[in-house]
């Protein structure tokens, strides 16, 4: 039996993508809990999410520093006791600072949940930011910053964000001096305002049976009270710079980092799902036009991509790559060429159908386990959207026309308005 190797096997379109929706519990103290229960493995991931407080340009690092230092001591537990207890039970504790929210995440086997939750409760409700730990934090962060600032891609991202978002939490690129503004008293006050029940959303995924839920409610219910001052989570208005071109020269550079793009629509906008299709075609997957041209045909780079970062108060479209320093101009010209093409010619049907299937397969594949279902929920919940977002998304992917893609490219990919950052040689 010799198989026919010249012809691709039959395949099926992806029809049904079903998402697991959470149970919702509202506690009296204002904290909201969402649970995704799947009993396959005896483990659980619990996330505590808090909206960041209003950005203060004079003390720009408070949001990130308070979040990062939640593991560094409470009234009852020292930093090393916290670490000991979490590590002893094989749990993983993460603090993650984000542009809109900061979070604390616990991964634990359910058999150790009662022990690990006790520690989490301490650090979320009673962190004290010991002076000595702040000193260590500042010194080590300043050292790490020096290393990051020698990376061209890091510099390009910082320069781009600053240009697009201005002096805001989104535009912040910490510098050495900023760390000197950190004061313990400010951190404590920031902590009390931000990490309180009314500003908290808990998302639990995994084996979240009644017993798991009871334990969460026990520790984060009436025992946890709000602060006298409500969390101010408003943010200053975004102010993009009027300067659009940034060249950061690095004489010895072997490669140049390129980052270009502009402020754009976020997830709440009706065009967002359709724009994702356009973005995928341009630079959103391995077979994208940017990859096919600039990597796979020209060999100018190891990788190039585009993306749309959607935030609560704004969004940015960007194209990013690191290319050989000697071909930087040529690479930029090819990027421009690909954008012009999308604005002037219809995407061929064969390419569009490939991208449709790729995107649906990718959505299906992204639902690997119960944690992924919780992540899908976070995307919509914090954007104030409902599950019909995913229906609109799959609808757009399945039905968008080449004409609509052309229209979107003309409407949104205005290269005249692009911010352009090159770090290296040009």
């Amino acid at each position, binding site marked *: *039996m010799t*198989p026919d*190797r010249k012809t*691709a*096997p*039959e*395949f*099926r379109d*992806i029809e049904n993508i079903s998402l697991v929706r959470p149970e919702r519990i509202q506690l009296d103290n204002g904290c909201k809990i969402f649970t995704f229960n799947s009993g396959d*493995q*005896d*483990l659980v991931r619990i996330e505590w999410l808090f909206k960041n407080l209003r950005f203060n340009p004079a003390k720009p690092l408070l949001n990130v520093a308070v979040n990062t230092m939640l593991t560094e001591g409470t009234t009852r537990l020292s*930093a*090393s006791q916290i*670490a000991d207890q979490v*590590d*002893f039970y*094989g*749990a*993983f504790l993460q603090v993650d600072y984000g542009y809109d929210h900061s979070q604390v995440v616990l*991964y634990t*086997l359910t058999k150790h949940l009662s022990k690990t939750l006790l520690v989490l409760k301490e650090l979320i409700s009673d962190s004290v930011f010991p002076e000595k730990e702040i000193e*260590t934090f500042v*010194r*080590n962060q300043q*050292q*790490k910053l*020096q*290393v990051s*600032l*020698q990376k*061209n891609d890091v510099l390009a991202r910082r320069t781009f964000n600053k240009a697009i978002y201005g002096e805001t939490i989104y535009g912040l690129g910490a510098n050495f001096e900023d760390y000197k503004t950190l004061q313990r008293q400010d951190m404590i006050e920031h902590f009390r305002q931000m990490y309180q029940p009314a500003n908290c959303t808990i998302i639990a995924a995994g084996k979240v049976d009644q017993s798991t839920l009871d334990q969460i409610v026990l520790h984060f219910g009436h025992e946890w009270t709000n602060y006298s001052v409500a969390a101010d989570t408003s943010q200053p208005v975004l102010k993009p710079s009027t300067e659009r071109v940034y060249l950061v020269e690095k004489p*010895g*550079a*072997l*490669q140049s980092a390129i980052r270009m793009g502009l402020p754009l629509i976020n997830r709440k906008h009706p065009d967002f799902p359709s724009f994702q299709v356009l973005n995928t075609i341009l630079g959103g*997957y*391995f*077979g994208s036009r940017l990859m096919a041209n600039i*990597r*796979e045909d*020209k*060999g*100018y*780079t*190891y990788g190039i991509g585009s993306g749309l970062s959607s935030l609560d108060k704004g969004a940015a479209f960007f194209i990013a790559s*690191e*290319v*050989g320093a000697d071909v930087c101009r040529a690479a930029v010209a090819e990027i421009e060429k690909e954008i012009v093409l999308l604005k002037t010619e219809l995407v061929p049907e064969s390419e569009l159908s*490939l*991208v449709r*299937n*790729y995107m649906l*397969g*990718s959505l*299906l*594949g992204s*639902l*690997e*386990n119960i944690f992924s279902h919780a992540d899908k929920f976070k995307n919509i919940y914090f954007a104030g959207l409902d599950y019909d977002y995913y229906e609109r998304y799959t609808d757009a992917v399945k039905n968008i026309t080449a004409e609509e893609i052309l229209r979107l490219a003309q409407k949104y990919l205005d290269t005249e308005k692009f911010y352009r950052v090159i770090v290296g040689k040009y």
Partner: protein
Amino acid sequence: MVKFNRFVLDNGLRVLVHEDHTTPMAVLNILYDVGARDEDPDKTGFAHLFEHLMFGGSVNIPQYDAPLQRVGGENNAFTSNDITNYYITLPAANIETAFWLESDRMLSLAFSEKSLEVQRNVVIEEFKQRYLNQPYGDVWLKLRPLVYQKHPYRWATIGKEIKHIEDARIADVKAFFKKHYNPQNAIVVIGGDISLEKAKELTEKWFGPIPAGEKYQRSLPREPKQSGERRETVTGIVPLNDLYIAFHMPGRLENGYYEIDLISDILSRGNSSRLHRTLVKDKQLFSEIHAYNMGSFDPGMFVVEGKPLENVSIETAENAIWEELEKLKNELVPENELTKVKNKTESTMVFSEMSLLDKAMNLAQFELFGDADLLNREIEKYNEVSSANIQFQAQQVFRKENSSTLVYLAEQG
């Protein structure tokens, strides 16, 4: 516990099937038993360059990626010093496309000159991006040849130098394919929403007709026992000094491996680990410090790496690291500290079972070690380790004459 079934085709291809019907996806993972250690010393970086060429079209299929994307699939690959691993994830209903693509490139590549030319450039850019245009990026290009003098672990997967990649010719590509890419040198794992029967049928259909080829007989020089302390100091335009101390350690399947792996956790896993607590927090000598082992199949490398604070001399930093290593040699690890690192290992194993692809890759790797079921005995192996075993291994490994120290000094540019 990762369950699986195993069968072997007449051409020698080893196949494992892991059914998981909780997902609508499927994965096809192929491990080829070839890595950078199998390269000619004058043609290093070739296994990795070759991995790129595997995406440049095969004998019957001009494009690899597009037909897969068309059915909703994604793929990628990696090369290490030991193995080359390719994987596809896609909706299970379309799994046959994965068989079609993977079997055709095992049958034969297209050997396109254009693909070779482009991928040489892409890999050269990768070389620059990851190893040359990054602060400290060239550390591995310097540390490996200090630690290894005979064994091919003395070069990095990317290769010794860009010139080796520039020099690659299509004749080399063909010879490499013939030597390493055939059913006898591969392990296939099929996982996800597919039955054993279906997996068997498709494997027979697509991989069955591929000629067995020749089994590659690996015969690598064994690294001679190190007889004296080694040390090198380099300077680079980096902001901070960086210190690396590397030791020879047992290979993945040798006695002592699990002990050393647990030692890396004791020293450096989590904020409760010894190096973080003592050297970053208490003594305030480093801004960051890590210890890890490379998990190499042949006798490997255990590395302690740290960036001392600006006011701390290299000598002080080095002595402080040695003090911690001496403690492991002179004192038994307390029982609850040992329990701690074992608990962490257990939960890491359980969490890794949340990912279909991780399960498939792990099965392939342990099958290469001799039996995929070894994966399910990992926790047991770690649990058998005693404090006395750890002390014994620490005494074997953490000796000056078994160490290579690389000091990376900052030169303000």
